[in-house]
C-alpha cells in the first residue's frame, strides 16, 4: 500500500464514518463532531486529488466557518436548559428507500462518465485565480452578490425574530 492509497482510504473512511454518524447520532454536539469529521474527510479527498487550495479552503470555510456557526447556534439556542439536547428523527423505511434509490440512480447514471481514476499531479493556486478572474468572472461576481444577499437575509430574519 502506498502512502497515496493510504491517504485515499483515510479520506474515504473519514467521510463515510462522519456522514453515518452525522445522520444517525442523536446528541447534537456529537452530530456536529461527526459532521466535522465528514468535512475533514472531504478536505482530505481534495488534497488526495491534488486540489490543495480547495482542500485548505474547505477547512477554512467549512470547519472554521460553517461548522463553528452551527455549534455556536446550538450553544446559544439550548445551553440553559441543562438537558442533553437530542435531535429528533423519524426513521422509516420509506425515506431510507428513497435515499438509497436516489444514490443508486446517481451511481448508475454517472458510471459511464468515469474512467479509471488517475492519480493526479499537484496543481497550484495561481491557475485558480486566473480561472476565477478570467472565464468565470461572472459566476464569481454572482457568488459575491449571492453572499451579500445571504447576509442581508440573515440580518432580516434575526431582526424579525427580535421584534416578536
Amino acid at each position: 500500500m502506498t502512502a497515496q492509497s493510504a491517504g485515499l482510504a483515510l479520506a474515504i473512511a473519514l467521510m463515510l464514518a462522519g456522514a453515518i454518524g452525522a445522520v444517525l447520532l442523536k446528541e447534537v454536539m456529537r452530530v456536529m463532531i461527526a459532521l466535522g469529521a465528514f468535512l475533514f474527510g472531504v478536505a482530505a479527498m481534495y488534497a488526495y486529488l491534488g486540489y490543495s487550495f480547495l482542500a485548505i479552503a474547505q477547512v477554512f470555510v467549512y470547519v472554521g466557518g460553517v461548522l463553528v456557526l452551527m455549534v455556536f447556534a446550538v450553544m446559544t439556542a439550548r445551553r440553559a436548559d441543562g438537558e442533553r439536547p437530542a435531535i429528533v428523527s423519524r426513521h422509516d423505511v420509506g425515506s431510507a428507500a428513497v435515499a438509497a434509490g436516489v444514490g443508486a440512480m446517481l451511481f448508475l447514471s454517472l458510471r459511464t462518465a468515469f474512467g479509471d481514476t488517475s492519480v493526479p499531479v499537484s496543481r497550484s493556486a495561481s491557475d485558480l485565480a486566473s480561472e476565477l478572474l478570467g472565464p468565470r468572472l461572472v459566476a464569481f461576481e454572482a457568488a459575491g452578490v449571492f453572499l451579500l444577499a445571504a447576509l442581508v437575509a440573515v440580518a432580516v430574519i434575526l431582526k424579525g425574530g427580535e421584534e416578536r
Partner: protein
Amino acid sequence: MTSFLLGALWGVVGVVVIAGGAVIGVWWERKVAGRIQLRYGPQQIGPAGSLQMLADVPKLLFKEDVVPSGADKPLFKYAPLVVFAPVAAAIAVIPFAKGWAMFDTAVGVLFFLAVPSIEVVAILVAAWAQRNTYSALGGLRAASQMIAYEVPRALSVAPLVLLAGSLRPTDLVAAWRWWWVPLLALAFLIYLISSIAEMNRGPFDLPEAESELVAGYFADYSGMRWAIFMMAEYGAIITTSLFAAATFLGAGWPFDGALGVVALIVKAAALVTLVMWTKWTLPRIRQDQLLRFCWTVLVPAALVQLAIVGVVLPWL
C-alpha cells in the same frame, strides 16, 4: 510509504518542539511577568528558576484528572487534544531556513491561516462538554473572537503573498527584501494584534478572563488536560512568532545556514517576549469593544495596506 513515515516523523518532531517550547515559554513568561511586576518570578530551582517547569510537569501529570459529573465524558476528555493538534500542525509549514520547511506546500500560507479554525471547533466542544455556564460563555466569546480576527489576520498576510507572488512560505522567504519591513510595517502590526486576539492572549484574553469567567472555556479542566490547553496557548504564541519572524522579518536574514536558523529563533523569541510584554502591561478589553476594534480599525487598516501594496506593485 517512506514519505508517509517521514511525515509521521516530522509530526513527532513538531509536537516535541511545541511542547518543549511551551515549557520554556512558561518559564520565560513568568520571568518577564515578574520583571514587569516588581517581582523575581521563579528563582529557586536551577539557574534563575529555569528548571522550575521540569518540576511542574510531573506535578501536572500526577494531579487527579477530575471529570465533572455533569460533563459529557468522551468529549470532555478528548477535546483538549483536538485543541492542541492544529497548533502543532501549524509549525509544519514554517520555513526555518531558505527553501526548507517540514511540509513545504504550495498553499502553506493558507494552511497556516486555516489551522486555528479547527482549534475554534475544539474549543467550543470543550466548552460545551463541561456543562458549565462560565465555560459556555468563554467558549462563545472565543469562537466569535477567533472567527472575527481571522479576517484581518488573513488580510494582513495578503500583501506578503502579493509581493512574493506565491502562497508557498519558502517562496516568501526567498522573495524577501529588507524594504519589505518599512513597506509592510502596518501589515505586520495588524498581523501581531490579530494573532494575539486569535490565540486569546491578553489584552484580548476575554474567553479565559480570570476576573470574570474564572478560566473561561477550560474552567473545569485540571491536571494534564489543563496543561494541554496551556501548551496549545504557548504553542500558538511560538508558531505565530516564528511565522512572523520568517515571513515579515526575513527569516535568517542577514545570515545563512545554521546561523540563519539561530537568527530566526532570536527574532521569534523577541516577538514572543513582545507578546508577553503586551499581556502583562495592558488591561483587558471588553467583548463589544473587541469586535468593534476588529471591524472598524483593523480590517480597514489592513485593506489600506493591501491597497498600498497593490499600487506600488507594478513599479517593483
